[in-house]
């Protein structure tokens, strides 16, 4: 008799943050369907319990409690933003249930406790390499920075960039900020243009990033002045919105859409077929995350006592090593963060390509 493995997924499915939350959910659903179609985990089907958390911390807490006490799920994925995770993950940790974040990039998330995991790419590993490669290849000397200062993701991109820029001994001629939801960046870019940097480092998510690049070109910042970003750049939307202006933009990430590896191409095809659009990095990470979780579940035998299974799952999950996913080889390090090799990417002829390994 096959049992059901209930896993809670809570993401921001409505509200402005839904543009991240929805692809994440899609990634999970795709992976779950694939696993179940292939016979489940040892014959047991995965059942995703999906709830919206609107990117509000109170809602995330409510959903977590519902998952834990009412739905009695085995483990939880989510929430979308680090901010909400800081509010809800302590609850999971206290109740001894695995919470697995796929998009929480803020520092300190896994410090909440031993039950907190994530596979979100640590930009801290890849961005220094991006900076280094770009400096060398482009012969950078002075650079400008623009980032969103009211968002923890973009702010952390900025901080990592700043460190690596210092390490490369580049001169920062100007640092500009913007706020979430801004559409006009002309003032910042006019200022940057007047200072004539060799490149612009950009801590922005894709919708702002693409507009920043577009407006920069309109204001006459030439294409040879490259924009260099974090994994917020890693989305087909950047090409769709930015078009020719985005050509040459550099970023870093373990996964990218046009990665020719077979596993990735299968994923991209299946996702595109199912949802009518290309996956982004958030979807890819969620997709991998469910397979990683499945690895963990495979390693334990379910007792039927959900409290007990939750703790055994934690231990098994922490041991996942060298999992091969769409983002390459993946392991958890001892603090349950992602250990994954990043790649330096750039946009070439309207596609993501490897700038340097």
């Amino acid at each position, binding site marked *: 008799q096959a049992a059901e493995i209930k896993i809670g997924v809570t993401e921001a499915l*409505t*509200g*402005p943050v*839904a*543009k991240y*939350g*929805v692809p994440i959910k899609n990634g999970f659903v795709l992976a779950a369907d694939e696993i179940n179609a292939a016979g489940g985990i040892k014959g047991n089907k995965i059942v995703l319990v999906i709830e919206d958390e609107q990117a509000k911390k109170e809602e995330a807490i409510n959903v977590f409690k519902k998952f834990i006490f009412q739905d009695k799920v085995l483990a939880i994925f989510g929430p979308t933003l680090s901010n909400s995770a800081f509010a809800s993950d302590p609850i999971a940790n206290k109740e001894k249930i695995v919470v697995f974040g796929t998009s929480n990039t803020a520092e300190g998330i896994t410090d909440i406790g031993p039950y907190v995991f994530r596979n979100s790419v640590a930009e801290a590993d890849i961005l220094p390499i991006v900076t280094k490669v770009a400096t060398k290849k482009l012969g950078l000397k002075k650079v400008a920075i623009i980032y969103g*200062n009211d968002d923890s993701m973009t702010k952390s991109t900025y901080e990592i960039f700043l460190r690596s820029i210092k390490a490369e001994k580049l001169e920062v001629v100007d640092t*500009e*900020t*913007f*706020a*979430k*939801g*801004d*559409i*006009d960046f*002309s*003032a*910042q870019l*006019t*200022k940057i243009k*007047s200072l004539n940097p060799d490149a612009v480092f950009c801590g922005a998510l894709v*919708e702002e990033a*693409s*507009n920043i690049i*577009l407006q920069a070109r*309109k*204001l*006459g910042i030439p294409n040879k002045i490259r924009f260099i970003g974090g994994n917020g750049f890693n989305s087909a*939307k950047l090409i*769709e*919105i930015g*078009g*020719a202006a985005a050509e040459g933009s550099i970023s870093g990430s373990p996964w990218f859409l046009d990665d020719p590896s077979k596993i990735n191409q299968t994923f991209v095809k299946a996702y595109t077929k199912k949802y009518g*659009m290309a996956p982004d990095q958030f979807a890819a990470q969620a997709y991998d995350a469910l397979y990683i979780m499945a690895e963990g579940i495979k390693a334990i035998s379910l007792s039927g006592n959900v409290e007990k299974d939750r703790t055994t799952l934690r231990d098994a999950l922490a041991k996942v090593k060298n999992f091969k996913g769409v983002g390459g080889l993946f392991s958890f390090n001892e603090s349950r963060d992602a250990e994954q090799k990043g790649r330096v990417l750039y946009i070439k002829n309207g596609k993501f390509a490897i700038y340097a390994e």
Partner: protein
Amino acid sequence: MFLQQFANALVLGSVYALFALGFTLIFGVLEVITLAHGAVFMIGAFAGLAVVTKFNAGLIPAILVGMMASGILGWLIDLLAIRPLRKRKFHHLAPMIATIGCATFVISISQGVFGAEIYRFPFDFMPATSYNFWAMQLTLLQIIIVGVALALMLIIIFLLNRTKWGKAVRAVAETPRTAALLGIPVERVFQLTSFSASALGGAAGVLTGINFNAIHTFMGGPIMHRGIAVIILGGMGDIRGAVVGGLILGFAEIMSVAYLSSDFRDAISFGLLFIILLVRPAGIFGSNIERKG
């Protein structure tokens, strides 16, 4: 650089002004701060986008369709959420809350239909060439935006002050009851105002959408909140105020980034608005001709 920043400010200010025109008009006549104006603005942008992508339409049809869609939405909101209130006594903020409900509804449904991601108008839709004036670089579209904002202001002022129906609108704006006694079809004026003011919001949506390439379900949010500041600053219900207020906010934002710090942009620009209000409590064009006797 100053001249370019000046141009940037002019464009941004005009965008705010465009948004605020309809916003302030509804306030002036219906005495409702319609927090659905952001949603109306968004629907205009999507409607414009839809005709362009589906039927390859040009700028003018895109704007017209955007205005139509927003106008109808605004009219429906008026009909279903505000009009029932007009017939009864109500708390003066009740209609505003009703419009919040409408906004939530419209945005939520649009998210179901369009999803949460962002869209843009096709690349070749507007020529990307820039024109140079002294040291200012502006695209054709940006020039259109500035021109349209100013032209609309003048047209609306003309209509309100010089035409019979315009005066009727002002009469209704002041005291619907007295207007009714003069034979003005008050209800029709309310609905007409809701429609046209929302259509203005739609035009703003389309132009903003084309210029900033960021059409999404939540695009009305950030501009709403600035729109409120603009119409208070300009003088609630004053058409000139909407444009001048919009320009002031645009200049404050751009210039604080250009010469102070982008970190504190919003604090500086809102602080400035606050100081202006200390000097002119009723807004730049607001007047208190309330007689105390």
